[in-house]
């Protein structure tokens, strides 16, 4: 494939001094990832990232579920910007694709319809007495990681290479719809040839696997998964992606978006339970990593410190391939040494296996 198209989609990314906005989902499901981001940026790369305890959810999930009205979310977002201003930052970075989409959408809305920005200012002032200045630079945290990928590569101790074969690991990436499908120009590589994760994978020695449903939605869909009866549709989308990637035998999936990482991981357990199908090797699922976990691993972080025991698809096969040393007995122990609980595994090795979806390759 002649792949240089991503180069048409570039954006400016600030080098340092970031105001950090967290993700609701990640704080609950992958808290290690956000911690890893801060550690990598601050400790490994020496960047200044401000993790403000005052900031809140962007309310994007509520917004996309028709619970939070547009005016409300605009006010909430304006407050985040005001907090950033008050903290003395101008580069706003978001740890969540939904939030990134929201921030991008609202900034564009304000640009197209200045009167809405004015109203938001009034609302914010009435509600909190704060005023705001729009960020000078808005980026997703993966953009930052992409931006510094070569710096990370320099400090890399465990490249994305199978230590047994010396071959690059085969990695499937999923950028999340709201990263570039709403505003393709705001995502590196656009929506058709996303490069933000691919760039990291390539920089760190892995091989990006292109597969037919690469651009398909993970099925998150907000209302679709929030209503239990509709979840079958949500799972069906993940399943479609998994079926499509399975023939390429990826070593792991790396996700950009909190929801995608959660679903591609957890729906594998659901599908295994409901249909007795898994998509990885040896009756196991395909490990799903966040890009911070991927970065943490290549930089030699302890997988349990990265929170990888929270995954429903076991990551050990991947760790073994990468030659990561880990303590199996410490997997489900917290920093205080206490048992933290254990997710059901996405394994169907006690069940009969249906043949994998095999297309004519």
């Amino acid at each position: 494939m002649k792949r240089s198209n991503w180069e048409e989609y570039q954006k400016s990314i600030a080098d340092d001094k970031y105001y950090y906005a967290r993700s609701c989902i990640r704080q609950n499901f992958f808290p290690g990832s956000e911690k890893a981001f801060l550690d990598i940026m601050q400790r490994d790369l020496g960047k200044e990232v401000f993790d403000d305890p005052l900031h809140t959810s962007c309310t994007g999930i509520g917004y996309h579920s028709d619970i939070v009205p547009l005016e409300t979310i605009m006010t909430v977002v304006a407050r985040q910007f005001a907090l950033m201003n008050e903290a003395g930052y101008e580069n706003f970075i978001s740890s969540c694709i939904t939030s990134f989409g929201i921030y991008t959408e609202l900034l564009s809305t304000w640009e197209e319809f200045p009167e809405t920005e004015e109203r938001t200012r009034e609302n914010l002032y009435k509600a909190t007495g704060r005023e705001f200045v729009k960020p000078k630079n808005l980026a997703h945290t993966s953009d930052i990681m992409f931006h510094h990928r070569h710096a990370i590569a320099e400090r890399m101790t465990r490249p994305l290479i199978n230590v047994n074969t010396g071959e690059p690991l085969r990695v499937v990436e999923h950028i999340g719809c709201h990263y570039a499908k709403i505003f393709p120009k705001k995502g590196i590589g656009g929506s058709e040839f996303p490069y933000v994760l691919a760039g990291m994978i390539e920089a760190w020695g892995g091989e990006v696997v292109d597969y037919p449903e690469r651009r398909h939605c993970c099925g998150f869909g907000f209302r679709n998964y929030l209503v239990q009866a509709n979840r079958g549709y949500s799972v069906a989308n993940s399943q479609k992606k998994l079926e499509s990637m399975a023939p390429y035998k990826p070593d792991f999936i790396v996700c950009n978006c909190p929801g995608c990482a959660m679903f591609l991981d957890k729906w594998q357990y659901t599908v295994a339970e409901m249909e007795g199908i898994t998509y990885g090797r040896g009756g196991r699922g395909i490990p799903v990593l966040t890009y911070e976990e991927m970065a943490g691993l290549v930089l030699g972080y302890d997988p349990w410190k990265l929170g990888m025991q929270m995954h429903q698809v076991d990551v050990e096969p991947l760790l073994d391939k990468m030659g990561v040393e880990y303590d199996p007995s410490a997997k489900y122990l917290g920093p205080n040494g206490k048992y933290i609980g254990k997710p059901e595994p996405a394994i169907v090795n006690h069940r009969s296996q249906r043949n994998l979806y095999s297309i004519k390759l």
Partner: protein
Amino acid sequence: MTEKRVAIIGGGVAGMQMAIHLKERGANPVIIEREPTLGGKVAGWYVLFPTFTPAEQVVAPLKQRIAELGIEVMLDTTVTAIAPTCVTLQHGQLLRCDAVALCSGSTLFDARIKEEYGYGIYDNVYTSADLEQMMREGEVRMANGERPERIAILHCVGSRDEKVCQRHCSKVCCVTGVKQAIELKRMMPQAEVFNFYMDIRMFGPGYEEMYREAQVAHNVHFVRGRISEASPLSEGRLQIKAEDTLTGRPLRMSVDMLVLLIGMRGNDDNLPLATSAGITLAENGFFHPRNHFLDNVESERKGIFMAGTCSSPKSIGETLCEATTAAERIINYLNRSNKA
């Protein structure tokens, strides 16, 4: 009459046909061609619908006649401005004349703009023009040199598509798609050919019959629905998605080769030429005639004529016919201005 000079812009089949007629009627035509050879788009084609006549059988006799009549031809020459009595060439040279004929043809749509089809990105995505070239070279092969077993042909790439500013129908792609499907089946009877179409527009004599032949005699599958995207599979194969609108269901399949039937668009220099001549362009970027009925080969300005696909997508037969008509009109015009 002999000193009456007609500048013909473009040496495709329209320009050549017109030049021959003008010369035979006593005028002195000069063909100004941007490319290093005469023949235009047709010279790159393999065979022509609906009779599967080799394109060479149309181009070669015209070229031969041009040579026999000693018609003046300026190759590698670009026109930058026109007026009824004068044509400006690339380096500002002026060419005096008594009438100007636009036979500048059209531009094939750049399939790369429809990025989702992967032209220029995936190996086995070709345009209809690429396929003609492959057929001229004698065989249709995938990038890895193997014979394709399943080929999808997508109609309306760069036609009837607001998203790429091509509202108009390019008219001849449908029949080209059917023709190419038949050629592919003749070359490779075991291959499966799927044509994805929005409407099938078989406007000319024998076209509908050809469409039916493709369906019945060659088992070409016609699926009504536009391909939404092409994605890569291993070994250069592609997965395509469309809606089979006749069943109301999404459809997906893998193919070895995807052929894009690219449409025609107005040349980029139509606008500067029109501006220099003081004439207007049609909304779709083609030249438009003074009116579509009685003066359909004349521009809004006296002394500037047009023929062929510079004024709208056309078949080769129609183009030749227009060139003849325009020549006739030019002769009348020259005679009148002579008397005046």
